[in-house]
């Protein structure tokens, strides 16, 4: 029996869906017991949410004031100490996990497997490289702790209904004061979260301006969809960074992805490869996005979006 420690991600009140997806990935390793570690401050409700996820045997709660904000320099020493008793340490490949897990790996003096997309054996994992243009089988030597991040778009959240045992845990690790949290600047989240939305409407450079993005939002709201964007649209200042989809933004897997005025750079395509159906609307018939779209329509998005909205 091997033991897996899964690092929970949360915003102080809610468990992030990436955690359940990470758990689902770890459940694919044979003969393991899964424990979730929640680091937070006043985080009983979050621990409760983690305990409800199927497959979880135990939830460990490291509740202390310093854990109120997610600073890798503060969390990593605690995780490394607790991880000593585990064979695997998994975190989500979100900005939280990407920031944190390599620090944990370094403290444990082991290499990290980034972005697991498939478990192919107890010590072998498929992961995308070169912006998803190649898939590598990473193999971890026997006797080495496996520290990894999980590409959450490759996994669905498993069922709930469990009631795992919750246990408080304390760490004696010395915590640094050289890193201080100032603030999170976040756009009001009035639309479905990109990483969990079943429908995502995305706009690119072709949308042309911040004001023009209103028609994208209008269509999204009619459909109850999340809104994403290409790097070009974010760079141009049309939308905020948290909406960027692609290699360096969010990797998403909605049932339906509709791209308006997005040319389809490989860095963008890598972020949407797991979408159920990809629809592309672009006025350039040669746009690369049409190569991977399931349904393509050549035309002017400023005519097509209002027509779609009206006919839906």
């Amino acid at each position, binding site marked *: 029996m091997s033991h897996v420690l899964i690092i929970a991600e949360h915003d102080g009140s809610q468990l992030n869906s990436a955690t359940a997806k990470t758990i689902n990935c770890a459940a694919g390793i044979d003969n393991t017991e899964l424990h979730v570690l929640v680091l937070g401050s006043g985080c009983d409700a979050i621990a409760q949410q983690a305990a409800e996820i199927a497959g979880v045997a135990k939830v460990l709660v490291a509740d202390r004031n310093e854990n109120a904000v997610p600073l890798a320099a503060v969390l990593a020493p605690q995780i490394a100490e607790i991880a000593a008793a585990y064979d695997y340490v998994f975190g989500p490949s979100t900005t939280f996990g990407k920031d944190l897990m390599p620090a944990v790996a370094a403290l444990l003096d082991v290499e*990290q497997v980034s*972005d697991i997309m498939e478990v192919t054996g107890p010590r072998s994992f498929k992961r995308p490289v070169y912006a998803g243009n190649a898939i590598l*089988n990473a193999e971890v030597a026997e006797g080495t702790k496996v520290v990894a991040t999980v590409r959450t778009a490759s996994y669905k959240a498993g069922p709930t209904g469990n009631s795992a045992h919750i246990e408080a845990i304390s760490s004696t690790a010395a915590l640094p004061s050289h890193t201080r949290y100032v603030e999170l*600047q976040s756009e009001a989240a009035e639309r479905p979260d990109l990483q969990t939305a079943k429908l995502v409407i995305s706009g690119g450079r072709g949308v042309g301006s911040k004001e023009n993005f209103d028609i994208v939002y209008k269509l999204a709201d009619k459909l109850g969809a999340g809104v994403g964007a290409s790097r070009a649209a974010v760079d141009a200042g049309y939308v905020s960074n948290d909406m960027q989809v692609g290699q360096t933004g969010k990797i998403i897997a909605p049932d339906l992805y509709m791209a308006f005025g997005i040319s389809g750079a490989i860095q963008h395509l890598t972020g949407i490869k797991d979408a159920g159906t990809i629809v592309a609307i672009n006025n350039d018939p040669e746009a690369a996005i*049409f190569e991977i779209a399931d349904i393509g329509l050549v035309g002017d998005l400023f005519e097509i979006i209002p027509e779609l909205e009206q006919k839906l």
Partner: protein
Amino acid sequence: MKTIMVCLKRVVDYNVRIRVKPDGSGVVTDGVKMSINPFDEIALEEALRIKERGEAEDVVVVSIGPADIQQQLRTGLAMGADRAVLIECNEDISSLTAAKVLLKCAEKEAPDLIVLGKQAIDDDCNQTGQMLATLWGRPQATFASKLELSGNVAKVTREVDAGLEVIEVDLPAVITTDLRLNEPRYVKLPDIMKAKKKQLESVAIADFGVELSSKVTAGNWETPASRAKGIMVNDVDALLAALKEKDLV
């Protein structure tokens, strides 16, 4: 501050269409254009801007790889770095090993700031900066889109999934760069000529005494499954019909 250390990785240029070798042993790199990892180029640009504002004296670029990485280091010098350190290594090393070697380098250079890309666009690991900071026992500020220095403190705006997170770190610190931190300058021909006279020190990786072998090894490489060929429709009605057929709207 005195020194900023910038780590550059040589990677397959971002415009190259990647092909997996038929025997699954890696990707085709023979005759392929190589460049500085774009995120590292942003890191160097940021270091140069700090120096040009008079807030640093010396920018040193460091790279690990075969002798050919000299080209990328010379590009770094042409962009404006003062000197370069080439750590010659002819085998593939992991991010952890790279971090250990860079740590030795940092101990020698004693920089106030180490800046590098948040990830390299070849292995997409996104690990080295965090590992280096941890091993160095210094703060990390990853995915930076804004960097403000004031005395011994760096205020860093980080691109995170929920928006923009602002943190403060004491120097020395490790900063990893995101795309929107800056737009790197183009190198001008006279600068390339000038760069030839700048100091480029070569060191063998063996001199650092770091174990190079890895516990995580690359098995077979594969080409990702491609999506089934799609259809083109002529108008909105046909698009809606196709979506309704799939029960998506």
